[in-house]
């Protein structure tokens, strides 16, 4: 990689001491985030993603390991001397300051000339569409407006990287979707590195260039959205990102026998875990051709979801598989509850985890 790394974490560990016990919140994370990337830390709550970000911001000192910004070791540099800014989950706007004063805070702290402060704050309020509301106090604004103030307050400083801690969590769905696009647009415009912490996988997939999926203090998988979705490195990732059907068993001669059917796993032998995305599966009443993976089952539930139908199909051993079928032609379902059906999918859609 020729580009300079905006943020590097080198085997970073964070331990807390609580009543004589040591709790590891982050158990050794190594990351290398190039400049200009939209990078997401994705994981369930308590996985260590927020702690990791707070170490980048400087609010927590790592117990072990190094943090580098633009190649410089900042492990022991306080947050006010780090050229990164943060958008807090609850925004953390200064309740006693107007919108203008909130946004101008960072510039004033850096002794920016007054004229420039005026110009840049004005510009930034234009960008986030808050021009004309400079005198408002935070508590007089809606959640979406507060969110934009928080964004403006961080971006106006033109940081080398912007850290966002679940910034859209408090917004309603429509607004959240609009802001996702907005954030992406702003990121492209200002061209700075975004590190985005979220537990919402669709948000991460929509916006990120790369995603680090974290679980229990460790990075389980690091890669682009497509890679993470299509080729999950672990069962956890497969389960956490989207919906997955997990099938396990011993394969012989590139074929895995399961109750009521077979899964083709060319080139694999022995114990395997296979993941199949529900939208890759075809549901039908005829037995499919030999070259497909196929399994028999009974429809347990059909849910109409507008653009597609979701089927829950119970296999002979009691396991359930989820199948999505596009409503491409008409809205009538292929099968009803209680019908006996065949599920089939192509060999390349069976992804063997860890391969």
């Amino acid at each position, binding site marked *: 990689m020729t580009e300079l790394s905006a943020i590097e974490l080198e085997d970073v560990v964070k331990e807390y001491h609580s009543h004589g016990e040591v709790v590891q919140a982050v158990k050794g994370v190594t990351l290398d985030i190039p400049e200009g990337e939209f990078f997401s830390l994705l994981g369930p709550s308590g996985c260590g993603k927020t702690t990791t970000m707070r170490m980048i911001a400087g*609010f927590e000192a790592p117990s072990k390991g190094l943090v580098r910004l633009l190649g410089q070791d900042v492990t022991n540099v306080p*947050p*006010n*001397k780090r050229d*990164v800014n943060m958008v807090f989950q*609850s925004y953390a706007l200064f309740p006693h300051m107007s919108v203008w004063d909130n946004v101008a805070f960072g510039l004033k*702290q850096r002794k920016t000339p007054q004229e420039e402060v005026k110009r840049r704050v004005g510009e930034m309020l234009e960008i986030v569409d808050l021009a004309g509301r400079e005198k408002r106090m935070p508590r007089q604004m809606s959640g979406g407006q507060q969110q934009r103030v928080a964004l403006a*307050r961080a971006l106006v400083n033109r940081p080398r990287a912007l850290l966002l801690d679940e910034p859209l969590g408090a917004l309603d769905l429509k607004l959240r979707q609009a802001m996702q696009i907005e954030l992406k647009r702003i990121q492209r415009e200002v061209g700075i590195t975004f590190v985005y912490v979220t537990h919402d996988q669709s948000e991460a997939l929509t916006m990120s260039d790369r995603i680090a999926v974290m679980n229990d203090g460790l990075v389980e998988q690091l890669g682009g959205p497509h890679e993470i979705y299509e080729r999950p490195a672990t069962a956890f990732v497969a389960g956490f990102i989207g919906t997955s059907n997990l099938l396990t068993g011993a394969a012989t001669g590139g074929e895995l026998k399961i109750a009521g059917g077979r899964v083709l796993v060319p080139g694999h032998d022995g114990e395997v875990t296979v993941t199949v995305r529900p939208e890759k599966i075809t549901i039908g009443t005829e037995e499919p051709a030999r070259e497909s993976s196929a399994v028999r089952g009974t429809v347990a539930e059909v849910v109409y979801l507008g653009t597609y139908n979701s089927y829950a199909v119970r296999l002979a051993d009691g396991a359930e598989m989820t199948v999505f079928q596009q409503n491409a032609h008409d809205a009538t379902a292929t099968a009803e509850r209680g019908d006996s059906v065949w599920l089939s999918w192509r060999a390349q859609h069976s992804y063997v985890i860890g391969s």
Partner: protein
Amino acid sequence: MRRLTPYLLALPSWMWLAIFLVVPMAAMASVSLQTGNAIDGFAMTFSFSNYADAIGAYSPQLLRSLLYGGLATVAMLVIGYPVAYWIAFKAGHRKSVYLFLLLLPFFVSFVLRTISWNFLLSDNGILFGTLKDWGLLPADFHVLATTFAVVGGLTYNFLPFMILPIYVALERVDPRVVEAAQDLYATRAAAFRRVVLPLSLPGVFAGVLMTFVPATADPINAAILGGTSNTMIGNIIQTEYLTNLDYPTASALSFTLMAVLLVGIFVYARALGTENVLEAAAR
């Protein structure tokens, strides 16, 4: 029902304040305009000169009280703020324990505390006597019967009333707001000055109100710890009322004191930029 709620909430306190404060105060206001003496009786003469006479006679004590009260308040603020700050942000789940410890000496009667101070601060007592024996202090060094002792006593006796409201205000400052300031390049000092301090001002205001006012009116510290020229206005009111039975003068002085304090609080609130003084006064 909704519209009645505030009235219902305020009603018990209103009754209390109306019956036990307003009525007696009105009576006192009337007394302050009367003339006469305890034996022959007092008559209402609308003698506003009572005020002029009382202020004329006791302006040195009045000014001294404001000075001592002000000094003590500043001292309390300087001493108490860091304590409130530490408890609010750093004491974790032991906050209430620390607050309790700070207030505990005040569950023991003030007379006992004062007697103990007298003993501790005695010219040749266990503290100064020892230091004098070691030659660390001149023989005629003394703290009792000085202005310092009076202001110190006021500071001591009202300190918890400064710490508690500041603590209450600081306790609700979101720590993330402080982090946000640091994230935006503010040093710890700047984050304190620009964010924590302004957010704690309502508590500071309440603390100043709760300490400056009673400290200025207090007669006890001056009587016990003061010397020959430390008499405060509270002592004068006490003498006029109890010894001289000059109820009009005592009442006039009390109202003057309250008026001066009210003006003082008003000016202070303005200096803080509070729009509505009475709102702020009750904050």
